């Protein structure tokens, strides 16, 4: 069996196992049915909850649209984490890089008046550049001073979110008539077209072409890893920095470049949310996406296709979770449990196999990133 299939099968098994455990959680928290000793009813709740989960994620065009809407920023931010992982760097700063990209994209979006054919790419480019510049900072800090990127990216998240909070209240960004931290709207010409725009003007289909940007970025990431010297050197540094240096690679500048590339992906995530979904920016525009992206990258084993699949899975869970809560009384918080369980089941066999030294099997789950010592 080829490696990709093997890991795909494995991911599927992890999802099934997580659904099993979650079903158990739904049953034991269904106090009412348990109180009556009515186990059948409790299991009925599980069935209705999972049916809602499916219906809300793939059951209709709108459900698919919601899945794509949720997956888009997770994919781009997930690529940001994956790209850094490949170079042996642990990027916890996707949140900050998203915010940087959101602000630069927003600025280009409202400050210029251009035809859409120029305005949209220009704004997206600005987002990528903003994210890349912000992402490069921890790279430079690590290369120059050895400051660990886990610490610096977390700190830079805080710096980014308060800077954005302040920026959104300045005259330049502030929306007329509002005193809270909310920006002007971007020009219509800078808005990413709706993905299902050809279906007529349906306001319930929120999915936008930021998803196409995500697919292109996924392809670019694949191309970078497989077809370029830079990608090869990134991975070599990721596997063994000392060996890479010995082989003549400039590992320090590779660190900066890798983090800038990661930042560019995250910047696009922020930009596509502003230009595609909201049309404006608020202080919460990045939400928890930067952290969820770590799980996405981990689940996707930092590969381009894996990140895409796991982003779609997380997007589907998010969209389906809402329907599940509306249909049954199972709260959407269950989705957090489900996601954590999936990641846990992916991670656990790695441990198990390492413990039993099952080398042959274990290699297919791949090296993801290195520990603190790196």
């Amino acid at each position, binding site marked *: 069996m080829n490696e990709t299939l093997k890991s795909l099968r494995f991911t599927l098994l992890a999802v099934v196992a997580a659904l099993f455990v979650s079903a158990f959680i739904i049953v034991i928290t269904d106090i009412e049915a348990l109180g009556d000793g009515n186990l059948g009813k409790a299991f009925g709740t599980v069935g209705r909850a999972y049916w809602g989960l499916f219906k809300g994620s793939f059951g209709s065009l709108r459900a698919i649209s919601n899945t794509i809407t949720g997956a888009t920023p997770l994919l781009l931010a997930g690529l940001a984490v994956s790209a850094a992982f490949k170079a042996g760097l642990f990027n916890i700063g996707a949140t900050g890089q998203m915010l940087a990209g959101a602000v630069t994209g927003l600025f280009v979006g409202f400050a210029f008046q251009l035809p859409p054919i120029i305005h949209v790419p220009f704004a997206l480019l600005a987002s990528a550049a903003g994210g890349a510049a912000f992402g490069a900072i921890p790279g430079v800090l690590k290369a120059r001073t050895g400051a660990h990127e886990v610490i610096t990216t977390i700190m830079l998240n805080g710096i980014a979110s308060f800077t954005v909070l302040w920026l959104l209240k300045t005259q330049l960004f502030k929306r007329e008539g509002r005193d809270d931290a909310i920006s002007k709207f971007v020009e219509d010409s800078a808005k990413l077209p709706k993905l299902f725009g050809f279906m007529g003007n349906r306001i319930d289909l929120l999915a936008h072409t930021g998803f196409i940007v995500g697919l292109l970025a996924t392809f670019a990431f694949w191309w970078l890893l497989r077809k370029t010297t830079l990608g090869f050197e990134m991975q070599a540094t990721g596997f063994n920095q000392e060996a890479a240096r010995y082989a003549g690679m400039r590992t320090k500048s590779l660190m900066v470049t890798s983090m800038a590339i990661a930042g560019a992906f995250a910047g696009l995530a922020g930009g596509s949310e502003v230009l595609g979904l909201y049309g404006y920016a608020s202080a919460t525009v990045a939400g928890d996406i930067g952290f969820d992206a770590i799980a996405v990258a981990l689940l996707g084993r930092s590969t381009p296709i894996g990140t895409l699949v796991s982003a779609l899975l997380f997007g589907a869970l998010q969209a389906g979770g809402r329907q599940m809560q509306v249909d049954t009384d199972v709260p959407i918080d269950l989705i957090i449990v489900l996601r954590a369980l999936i990641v846990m089941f992916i991670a656990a066999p790695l441990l198990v196999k390492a413990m039993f030294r099952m080398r042959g099997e274990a290699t297919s789950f791949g090296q993801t990133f290195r*520990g603190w010592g790196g």
Partner: protein
Amino acid sequence: MRKHKGLKSAALAIAAFALIASACGSDDATEEVAEEEEVTEETTAPLPGAGTLACMVTDTGGVDDKGFNQISYAGMLQAESELGVTIDLLESASDADYAPNLQSFADKGCNITVTVGFLLGDATKAAAEANAGLSYAIVDYAYDPAIANARGLVFATDQPSFMAGYLSAAMSKTGIVGTYGGINIPPVTIFMEGFRKGVEYYNTQKGATVKLLGWDGKDGTFAGNFDSLDDGKNIAKSQADEGADIIFPVAGPVGLGSAQYALESGGKVRIIGVDVDMSVSNPDAAAVYIASVLKKIDAAVFAAIKDVVEGSGVTDNYVGTLANGGVGVAFTAVPDALKAEVEAIGAGIADGSIKI
């Protein structure tokens, strides 16, 4: 390998935490269902709202924010027990949830969907226009021009604040009172402006010279947030240092910090509560409250649901005033004579003989 362990335990911790959260969540849900069933069993005639579905979308604060989301939800619970409507709730985790949450409730056929907070203004408008057969109501937002199936719920909180200003001026021993806000936005400053005019009214009526700190009609003191108790403590302290002995915080939980300072001052500083009767909602510091300015969001939410149940519709915006009981003052520690005087002023505002 160490990293994996770390992540795994983090995931476990998240899972455990969310497990507890979801357990609590479905506890509440089942309790609600249980209550509902009791009601239908006890009453012989079915309640008027049976078969009506009332839904609520909160903003990002969530339903247990001890603030306006929670007060709004209290109105939902009241409608559930008194009208027999079925209720449902979706909390928004971010701005991106507003539209999909509203869409889910439209699909479910919610006869009325109540949205909480002006951040949902645009999303609620879009939902109302797309679903002409369903009704909507939104807290702290008014539509101009009005929408046929969406009612804005707003409150003339300057009226009870005016009464509180008069009251504070009359009760101040130092001749100095204070106020401050959370953030400089109209729903906050309307309280402060009413308070200022109440103090001024007292001065002209009694020929007194009571001074107000923290708001001059245009600008004033703001904490910059709605959650730092420390800020509330510090602002109260600095106003007390300037001589203020009664303070009116319009800043949600920040005001609880001022109450804490007042409690520590041992009676030198006292507080006017805001939104709800804080001598009840904040029992630990009940002794420091003289009175509270009430903004009865729950009553307005209940009334909107009732109108839908009775079929009279939600066309016009609702403005809570002293005249219709949508706003008011709760007296906690006010001498009877002064209470009667202030109530007379309230009546004057309600019938229009006193202009604010």
